C-alpha cells in the first residue's frame, strides 16, 4: 500500500541520524572543541535533511512518530540534556508506543537530565513491550550509574550484570552487549573491594568476545577497559599494548598516563632488583628465615620449584625487603627473597597497607606464579612474580591474618579447598 518513494526521505533521515551517532562514538580529535563543532555541524545538516521532508510525507501517525523520534534523536546527540529533545521523543513514544528506539533515546535523554529513576522507569516500560538488546544494555549501564553512592550498590551492579547477560542471549555476536557485560563485571570487581579476580577474568573474557565484533574496532573505551583488566591481572604486555591502542583512538582518554603508571611500577621493581638489593643484607635476611608450622597438606618450596600459574598445596617462605609503592588502589606490591636468596615480587589483594612491613617473614600459600618477561620501548623487564588473591593465603611471621586486617570482612566460599 505504501509508496516506496514516500518512505525514502524518512529512511534517508534515519540513516543520517545513525551516521551522526557513529560520528559521536568514533570521532576523537586531539582538540575536543573540534569534536563538538563537528557534531554541531553534522547535527545541523541532519536536522535540515529531516525538515526538508514535505508535510504530506509525515502525515500518518507512523510517519509522525518516526519524524518526532528522529528529530529528538538528532537533538540529543550532545552530552548535555536538551528539553526540546525530550519533548520530541516523548511525543514519538505517545504516537507509537512500539517504537523501541524512541524509548531508548528517551531513556537516555532523561538520564542526562539527572532523573535516573524516571530513566529507569522509561526503559523498564519499554522492556515490557518486548525484549530488546539495546534497551537491556542501556538499563545495564543505568543500573551501574544508579549504584554510585547507593546503599545497595553491589545489588544494583549485580542487576546490571544480569541485564547485560540477557542482552547477550538475544544476540551472542553483538560486541556492544559483550562490552557492556565486561564493564559490569569490572564495576563489580571495584564495588566489592577490588579483590575478587574471578570478576576480572569474567570481565576480560567479555571484552575478548566484544573484540570479535568488527564494529567494536572503533570503540576506544573497549581497548582502554580491556587494558585496565589486564593491568589488574598483571598481564603487563597486553595492558601496555591495549592502553597504547586506546590512546591512538582517543587522545582524550588518560591512556597515556596509564601506560606511564605501569612503566613506573616496572621501572621501580627493576631498579630495586638491580641496584638496591645488597648481597650482604639479602644473605642476612635469607638466613634469618625460620621454619613456620604448616598444615600437613602443604609442602614447603623455594621459588625455583614453582610452576607457572596456580600452585596448589605449596608454601613459599620469604622475607620482605621492600614495600613497592604504586599508584593503584590494588594490589599491594612487595619485594621478597626466599632462603635461596632468590628475589621476587609479591602482589597481594585483600590486605590492608599497614599489615605487612619490611623485615616480616611471609608464608605464601597456594601461590600463583608468573615468570614476567616483557619488552616495552626497547627496554626489557624480567622478574619472578607471585600473586595472592585472598588474605587467608598469607601468614605474617607465622601467624594467620584476622578478618580485621583484610580489606573486607565478608566470607566467600570459592577459595575453600
Amino acid at each position, binding site marked *: 500500500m505504501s509508496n516506496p518513494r514516500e518512505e525514502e526521505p524518512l529512511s534517508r533521515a534515519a540513516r543520517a541520524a545513525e551516521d551522526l551517532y557513529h560520528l559521536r562514538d568514533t570521532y576523537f580529535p586531539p582538540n575536543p572543541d573540534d569534536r563538538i563543532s563537528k557534531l554541531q555541524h553534522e547535527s545541523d545538516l541532519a536536522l535540515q535533511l529531516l525538515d526538508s521532508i514535505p508535510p504530506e510525507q509525515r502525515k500518518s501517525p507512523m510517519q509522525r512518530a518516526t519524524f518526532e523520534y528522529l528529530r529528538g534523536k538528532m537533538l540529543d546527540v550532545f552530552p548535555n540534556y536538551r528539553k526540546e529533545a525530550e519533548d520530541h521523543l516523548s511525543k514519538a513514544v505517545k504516537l507509537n508506543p512500539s517504537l523501541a528506539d524512541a524509548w531508548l533515546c528517551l531513556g537516555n535523554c532523561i538520564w542526562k537530565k539527572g532523573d535516573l529513576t524516571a530513566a529507569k522507569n522509561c526503559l523498564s516500560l519499554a522492556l515490557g513491550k518486548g525484549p530488546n538488546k539495546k534497551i537491556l544494555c542501556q538499563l545495564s549501564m543505568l543500573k551501574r550509574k544508579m549504584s554510585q553512592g547507593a546503599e545497595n550498590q553491589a545489588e544494583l551492579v549485580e542487576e546490571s550484570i*544480569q541485564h547485560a*547477560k540477557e542482552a*547477550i*542471549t538475544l544476540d*551472542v*555476536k553483538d560486541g556492544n552487549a559483550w562490552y557492556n557485560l565486561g564493564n559490569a563485571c569490572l564495576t563489580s570487581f571495584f564495588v566489592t573491594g577490588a579483590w575478587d579476580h574471578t570478576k576480572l577474568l569474567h570481565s576480560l573474557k567479555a571484552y575478548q568476545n566484544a573484540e*570479535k565484533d568488527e564494529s567494536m574496532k572503533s570503540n576506544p573505551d573497549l581497548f582502554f577497559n580491556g587494558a585496565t583488566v589486564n593491568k589488574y591481572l598483571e598481564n603487563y604486555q597486553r595492558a601496555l599494548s591495549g592502553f597504547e591502542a586506546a590512546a591512538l583512538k582517543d587522545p582524550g582518554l588518560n591512556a597515556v598516563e596509564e601506560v606511564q603508571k605501569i612503566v613506573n611500577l616496572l621501572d621501580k621493581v627493576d631498579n630495586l632488583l638491580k641496584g638496591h638489593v645488597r648481597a650482604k643484607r639479602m644473605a642476612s635476611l635469607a638466613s634469618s628465615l625460620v621454619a613456620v608450622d604448616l598444615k600437613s597438606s602443604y609442602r614447603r618450596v623455594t621459588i625455583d620449584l614453582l610452576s607457572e600459574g596456580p600452585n596448589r598445596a605449596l608454601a613459599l617462605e620469604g622475607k620482605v625487603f621492600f614495600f613497592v609503592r604504586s599508584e593503584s588502589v590494588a594490589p599491594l606490591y612487595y619485594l621478597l627473597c626466599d632462603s635461596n636468596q632468590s628475589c621476587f615480587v609479591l602482589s597481594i589483594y585483600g590486605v590492608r597497607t599497614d599489615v605487612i612491613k619490611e623485615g616480616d617473614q611471609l608464608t605464601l600459600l597456594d601461590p600463583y606464579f608468573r615468570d614476567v618477561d616483557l619488552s616495552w620501548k626497547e627496554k626489557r623487564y624480567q622478574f619472578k612474580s607471585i600473586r595472592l588473591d585472598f588474605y587467608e593465603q598469607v601468614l605474617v611471621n607465622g601467624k594467620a591474618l584476622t578478618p580485621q586486617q583484610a580489606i573486607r570482612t565478608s566470607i566467600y566460599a570459592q577459595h575453600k579447598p
Partner: protein
Amino acid sequence: EEKIGKELIKSICKNRGNDELCMQVLSSDPDSDHADLQELALISLKAAASNASGILNDCKRMIDNQDLEPKIQQGLADCKENLLDAEGQIQDAVASILNNDKLDAQVWLKAALAAIDTCDDSIPGDDDVLSRKSVSFRQLCNIAVAINKAMLAART
C-alpha cells in the same frame, strides 16, 4: 514429584529434532538413571567438551599438512582459535551450572555455538571435514541449552 532418570530424559528429548542422539548421550553416563536436570546438563556438557577437543585435535593435525593452500591454512588457524574459545566457554558453562547460575550458563553456551559458527565460516567451502564434525557439537550444545532452559523454567 520431580522427574528423574529415564523419565526425565524422555521428557527432555521428546521435543528435540534429533531425539536419538539426545537419548543416547543423556543415557550414556553411569549416573544417568538417577540424574536430575542439573546432572543431565553436566552430562551433555561433558560430551560437548569431549567433542570439541576431538575437533580441535583434528584441526591441529590438518594445520600441519603442508600441502594445503595458504587460504585453507589461514582458515584452519582462525578456526583453531575459535575452537579453543569454545572449549573454554563450555568449561565456563559447567562452572555456571555448578554455581546454579543458569543465565550465565546460557550466555556461555550461546558463545560456544557462535564460536563454532565462526570456525565454520573461516574455512573455505561448504563441505569440509570440520564443518561436518561440528554438526554434532552443535547438537550436543543445544541439548544442554534445552536442559538449561528447562531449569530456568522450573525456577519461575
